[in-house]
């Protein structure tokens, strides 16, 4: 594409965040409400950059305890042991389910980290007014929205182990504080991705010739 892009904002139209209707806003400062569904109109999500940064930083802080603190404690007649996410992965690997170990490693350790780095990268490039790799950055954003939920898998696994193994004093499984931080990371990164506005990626190149293909 080599033409100058005509966007809703550049032509004075605003797209409803709820129903997608394109309409002429009531004013440039206060766009008013969507005539179809009544949602408050916004040209861009409000305070997208600040909000997303705040959520990314909070999630980053939770990421450490989520990986260091134990998530479950297994008690049997003769032993008591606690497992972190990582030691759970190592156990699975040692007992021969290397494929499940790999899935858990990706879902619990790598996806949250990848998501946090990707969001930070998008935020920094937007703040610097980057005009390159727009399509790739847009794709990165969409990918992140899809994969984030899978990080929750270990919390689900812990929940069902806790629910199922209640054979005191023979054997029982109890949750540990790690699950709280871990769910925190997942929720915060999901909300962070929601509060970012992917249209900002394209705004920096607005009015310039697009040489992106």
């Amino acid at each position, binding site marked *: 594409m080599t033409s100058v892009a005509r966007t809703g904002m550049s032509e004075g139209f605003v797209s409803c965040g709820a129903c*997608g209707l394109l309409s002429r806003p009531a004013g440039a400062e206060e766009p008013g409400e969507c005539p179809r569904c009544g949602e408050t109109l916004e040209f861009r999500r409000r305070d997208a950059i600040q909000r997303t940064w705040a959520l990314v930083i909070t999630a980053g802080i939770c990421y450490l305890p989520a990986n260091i603190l134990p998530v479950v404690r297994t008690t049997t007649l003769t032993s008591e042991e606690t497992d972190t996410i990582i030691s759970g992965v190592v156990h699975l690997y040692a007992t021969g389910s290397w494929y499940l170990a790999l899935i858990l490693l990706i879902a619990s350790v790598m996806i949250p980290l990848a998501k946090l780095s990707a969001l930070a990268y998008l935020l920094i490039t937007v703040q610097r007014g980057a005009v390159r790799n*727009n399509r790739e950055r847009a*794709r990165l954003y969409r990918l992140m929205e899809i994969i984030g939920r899978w990080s929750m898998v270990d919390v689900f696994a812990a929940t069902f182990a806790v629910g199922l*193994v209640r054979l005191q004093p023979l054997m029982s499984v109890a949750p540990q504080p790690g699950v*709280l931080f871990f769910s925190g990371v997942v929720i915060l990164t999901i909300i962070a991705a929601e509060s970012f506005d992917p249209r900002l990626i394209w705004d920096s190149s607005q009015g310039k010739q697009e040489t992106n293909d």
Partner: protein
Amino acid sequence: MASLSADVVACPDCDLLQRIPALSPGGSAYCPRCGRKVATSKPGSLERTTALAVAAAIAFLITNVEPLMGLSLAGREASTTIAGGVWQMWEQGEKITALLIALFAVIAPALQIGFLLAILLSLRRPPAPRWVGALLRWVEIAGSWSMVEVMMLGILVSLVKLAAIARVVPGVGIFAAGGLILLLAAMSSSFDPREAWSRVRWVKDEGPQRALPSGGVDAAEAGR
């Protein structure tokens, strides 16, 4: 009604103005700038989605009532449902996690199916009342927090982990959950929110005359 044509949209991901071309049945239109899918033609969506939503509601009930898995160790047995897992989490002090699991595995999918059924029924006689618009917004939110497929993987992980120390038996609930995952995916992909919104009564009956943005590029049709 406003004169802005329903065929002109701004891409939700990059704000590019574009006209959605007439699509062949099942065809999709993609934003030429960022590649985001902006529309899909879904003929017969209303009937098919209703059937899928009813089936999903049944699978959801079975998933939540039947045990997901059982365990036997040294002559003692135990089994758990989703609610059982949530309850134990709550009892043992992880209240926030218990609430989150309940939200992702039970409440969000229930609302997703329930809201969609309510929407589909009221769309049969357009224009649908305004509360359908609110439900359309909520069904999207519920869908984004509904994680039955992630729960399924979590169950499999804990089955494999426990199989090393005890005998585990998959319950009826786990098979229903498998069906529920497929039905939820089919239900969401067969639902056509653009069509639904076009049948909802507008908040402002007599909208101001809105000029159509002249020109604008066409969204690219499937298989760019």
